[in-house]
């Protein structure tokens, strides 16, 4: 479904990614593992069009889509849950989700379905989004992505700073999306969790893919080495 070939990304003169190759299959959950600054977020941002890359380097259903705008990628079905949630403080919980729904793709996921699945959010739907607890905010951020009905959902550090209970809630929601056949890419600090949730994994180090494999067969020693770069 998604094929990344020879992807290089730059911030001005600084090169953040070096000829990255990877793929995500239909319905698959892929984990991206790497230390801070390895280039994981840049990779996700390149896929949604927030960082401009060459057209051929990102192929979605065989079509070269690299460098297209965020709106075009959203219409194709690629949506990012950004690191740090990035909810709109001036908008209520409901407005945050409805705004995304209006600009997304039609499909099963909509605001009402999410409020039905997450009654705790329904209760606070008219509060400013950033007045909620971290865990609830993360659920809003994921909901905001789900209502665009993506085919490929990119999650950047969705469990960072959350309580264990909140992390479970976040993954319960993601697994509901996966049961619908949505493909998911996880960027996760918690390597154990990432490997437990994912089908396959890639380790990124200093902008390069240094290790990849099937999550269930991952050699934790090798992953740790790839992570720390020893």
């Amino acid at each position, binding site marked *: 479904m998604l094929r990344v070939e020879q992807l290089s990304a730059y911030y001005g003169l600084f090169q953040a990614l070096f000829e990255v190759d990877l793929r995500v299959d239909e319905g698959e959950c892929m984990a991206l593992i790497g230390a801070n600054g390895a280039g994981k977020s840049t990779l996700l941002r390149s896929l*949604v069009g*927030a960082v401009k890359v060459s057209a051929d380097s990102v192929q979605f259903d065989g079509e070269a889509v690299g460098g297209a*705008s*965020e*709106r075009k990628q*959203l*219409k194709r079905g690629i*949506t*990012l849950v*950004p690191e740090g949630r*990035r909810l*709109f*403080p*001036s*908008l209520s919980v409901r*407005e*945050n989700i*409805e*705004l*995304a729904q*209006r*600009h*997304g793709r039609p499909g099963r996921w909509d605001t009402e379905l999410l409020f039905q699945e997450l009654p705790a959010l329904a209760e606070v739907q008219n509060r400013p989004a950033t007045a909620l607890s971290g865990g609830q905010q993360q659920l809003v951020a994921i909901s*905001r992505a789900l209502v*665009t009905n993506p085919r490929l959902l990119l999650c950047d550090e969705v469990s960072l700073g959350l309580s264990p209970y909140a992390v479970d809630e976040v993954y319960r929601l993601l697994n509901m999306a996966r049961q619908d056949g949505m493909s998911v890419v996880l960027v996760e600090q918690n390597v154990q969790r990432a490997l437990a949730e994912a089908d396959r994994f890639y380790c990124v180090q200093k902008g390069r893919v240094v290790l990849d494999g099937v999550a269930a067969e991952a050699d934790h020693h090798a992953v740790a080495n790839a992570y720390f770069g020893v």
Partner: protein
Amino acid sequence: MLSLLETLINGLLLGALYALFGIGLSLSLGVMRMINIAHGDLIVLGAYLSSVIVLNTDLDPLSSLLIVIPMMFVIGWLLQKLLFNRVMGRDPLSPLLLTFGLSIVIQNLLQELFSADTRSLPAGDLALQGIELGGVNIGVLPLISAGISVLAFLFVAHLINRSPIGSAVRAVADDQETARLVGVNDRRLFAYMAGFVLVTVAVASVLYGMRTPFSPTAGPERLIYSFEAVVLGGLGNLWGTFFGGLIIGVAQLLGARIDTGLGPFFGHLVFLVVLIARPEGLFKAGRA
């Protein structure tokens, strides 16, 4: 005592017009993070457009708005599409320089087309009519202007806080990058916003032209009053702009009681004092 009350009321009515000048500036600052130096010149441009229509048709200034409003919307839309969008999101200096240049272009264009002579829009009987309330004389025209200003603020507040477009606008104001991630077309939104800003400018310009004579170089003074209203009320606070305008209006007319020539000076003085005491403005930043 009664004359003081009259000055106060007239100051509020004048201030409501200044607030209407500021509403567009408040929106471009609050949402697009852009200072439009040509804002005052666009107000004067609107007044000249109305003047041309009034001279060439049987429309009066207020009905000329039927033509001026769509024209100004298109001008705003085009300015944003062709010029402003090219410099937005870089550094704050680029839009500043660009609109400074635009201000000079508009002033010279008006001078070239209409000469440096002052003009005014014929207000007819409205200019002379007044009502007396308990010994206080209030002009009908200022009253109508203030009424329109209040309606404009209510409409914009509703648009920003309650409508789907408003939530997109607030999202962009909060975090433009993330707004793009959820599919908001920020550049198209900005073009419509700029068009809408010039609609408020069109209304303000006609009311202004009916009240005060204007000339091609009157723009910068309008810009300063608008800017003072916006900053006094607190950046990004719509109703703050409204009350900021009222304060400037009252200060000017109270000042003019002391010396007729010192009205604007007292407006600036109040602005300066507030800026020193509360640099963030009188009201905290609220919704758009």
